[in-house]
């Protein structure tokens, strides 16, 4: 155990340094793509009403007149200082915008992945246990819809039916107009409201997230069900399950503990992957539900050719994706002693 704790620490350090290298690569790509796109960055940064003189001043000030490699180094220097540039659209530093919008998205995505895992894993197990019988067919219907229905269309349908027709959930946004925004601690309103001792507001924030979270989690739910079902089927046919049955161990324990702990490993990889996809999916879903998160922020920036926010969001989502993968690998090592031994 002692030895494996040290190995774990080394693994984390190794992976974090690798992440820095990958982020650098990502920065090269986003920087190149945005800078070879047509348009004059100085004019864009100065805004449509600026005089030619202003534009030239900004060109020199922000280094837009220098060659691309030099500008990239300058950009990296800024990044290293935590300066993500400025948004023309919000006319604020991107770092400030991110601090406001990122927690909202995190809250939404965490809620969504929670739905996908809490439903997906048991559904996958049930489908495997009742293979080719009614529960399996019913669950397959769910997982096929998850693949077939486009996220934004599902979002619109949910809005139309559950919100407009039945009035069960708000149409969009993050809080009602009469709700008081709790003092900012984590930036995630649900948590902040709970910390401030205001469960009503927390409930309301949650209610605002239900529909976008369903839309966001549906494809992930489908994928998790499929992977977990397939893994459970495979594991339930393994020899150690036969042995457990031969010992007289009951079916619930065999399925929920002996088999699931083996089947959950590949499912975890899928959960990590889907978490990353969800982050990207927020661009669509937050737009549909007018949910003020980083996805909506990026979408609005893209429409107004506001490059610096887009580059920043790309890097942040990339980092989040890599961090998730690291967490998944650590969970793998925790659950599987054979993996633990290899690190």
């Amino acid at each position, binding site marked *: 155990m002692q030895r494996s704790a040290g190995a774990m620490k080394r693994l984390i350090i190794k992976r974090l340094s690798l992440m820095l290298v990958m982020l650098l690569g990502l920065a090269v790509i986003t920087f190149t793509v945005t800078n070879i796109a047509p348009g004059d960055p100085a004019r864009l940064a100065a805004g449509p009403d600026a005089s030619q003189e202003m534009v030239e001043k900004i060109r020199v000030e922000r280094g837009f007149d220098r060659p691309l490699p030099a500008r990239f180094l300058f950009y990296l220097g800024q990044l290293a200082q935590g300066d993500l540039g400025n948004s023309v659209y919000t006319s604020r530093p991107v770092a400030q915008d991110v601090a406001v919008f990122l927690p909202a998205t995190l809250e939404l995505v965490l809620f969504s992945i929670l739905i996908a895992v809490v439903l997906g894993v048991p559904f996958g197990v049930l489908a495997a246990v009742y293979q080719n019988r009614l529960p399996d067919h019913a669950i397959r219907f769910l997982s096929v819809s998850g693949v077939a229905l486009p996220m934004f269309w599902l979002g619109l349908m949910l809005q139309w039916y559950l919100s407009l027709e039945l009035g069960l959930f708000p149409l969009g946004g993050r809080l009602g107009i009469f709700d008081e925004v709790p003092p900012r601690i984590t930036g995630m309103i649900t948590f902040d409201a709970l910390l401030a001792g205001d469960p009503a507001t927390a409930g309301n924030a949650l209610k605002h997230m239900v529909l976008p979270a369903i839309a966001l989690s549906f494809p992930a739910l489908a994928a998790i069900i499929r992977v977990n079902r397939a893994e459970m089927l495979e594991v339930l046919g*393994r*020899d*150690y399950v*036969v*042995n*457990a*049955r*031969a*010992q*007289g*161990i*009951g*079916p619930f*324990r065999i399925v929920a503990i*002996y088999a699931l*702990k*083996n089947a959950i490993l590949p499912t975890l990889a899928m959960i990590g992957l889907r978490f990353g996809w969800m982050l990207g999916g927020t661009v669509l879903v937050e737009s549909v539900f007018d949910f003020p998160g980083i996805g909506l922020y990026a979408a609005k920036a893209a429409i107004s050719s506001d490059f610096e926010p887009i580059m920043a969001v790309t890097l942040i989502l990339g980092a989040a994706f890599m961090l998730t993968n690291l967490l998944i690998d650590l969970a793998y090592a925790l*659950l*599987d*002693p*054979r993996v633990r*031994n290899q690190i």
Partner: protein
Amino acid sequence: MTKEPLLDIRDFSLVFDTFDGTYHAIDRVNLSLQPGEALGLVGETGCGKSVLTRAAFGLVPTPPARITGGSVKLAGRELLGLSDRELRQVRGRQVAMIFQDPMTYLNPVFRIGTQLIDAIRAQSGGRIKRVEAKAIALDMLEKVQLPNPERQLAAYPHELSGGMRQRVLIAMALAAKPRLLIADEPTTALDVTIQAQILDLMAGLVDEMGLTMIMISHDLGVVAQVCSRVAVMYAGKVVEDAPIAQIFDAPAHPYTQGLLAALPHPFRRQDRLASIPGTLPDLLHPPSGCLFAARCAQAAPACGVPVPMRPVGEAHRVACTLYDDERKKEPAHV
């Protein structure tokens, strides 16, 4: 046969409903074991040894399997038709199984101790407490001569060698002091030196605990070391059933004779092992007569109709037309 048999399998038949059709895996098998007896079950791969011994105790999933007839009595109690819960009690307490590959029969993500304790508690129907189960586990690990039992409890299966894992599996199987032990090729996957150790250990435990045993093997040599009687299976049927000496000295069925010829002989120089030409019949469409006829050098028209088991000596039965009164023909010896 004055005593009541411990295990009595009568006319047991089982099919698999597969995509291609009905696969007749086990066909009207009879097997009977007296208490304290050790029976060897031999036959080439795929002949149904594992399916038979597992299905008798509800260990073959249905579907795809379907038991189409017969009866399985354990100490006089009919097992076919029992609920899963009742069968679980039977498996845990009265019948123990040890399997072929110790590498795959332990769960890779749980500690040895967890698996042992879980099994022991399940065998008791949950009556035994965790602490008590741990004591039994330690005791059993000592019985199977695993070094450092206390430390092995905290180990994961991949940290143990094949022989050690098989010892763990034996400890697990025998913890509840069962009456019947089914050992399904318990040494096939092990090194030769380890094989001998495990066989010795098992023979000792069978003796000490007064177990009745079915030992499944491809290897007549292994069976000869442990068993007093042998049943030979071919394509889902038992074709010969005899005391071990009879099998070696006067094998009656041409298939058994073939199996013996395939054994490496310690005193005779052989350039290569003899093997029986041909392959197993198609059990999706089994012929109505003797299933071995297509591979048999002595096949006759009489083999085309169902061939029942008949006695050919003291406790020696065989399913072969060579011993029909009408086919007055000396059995050929190989």
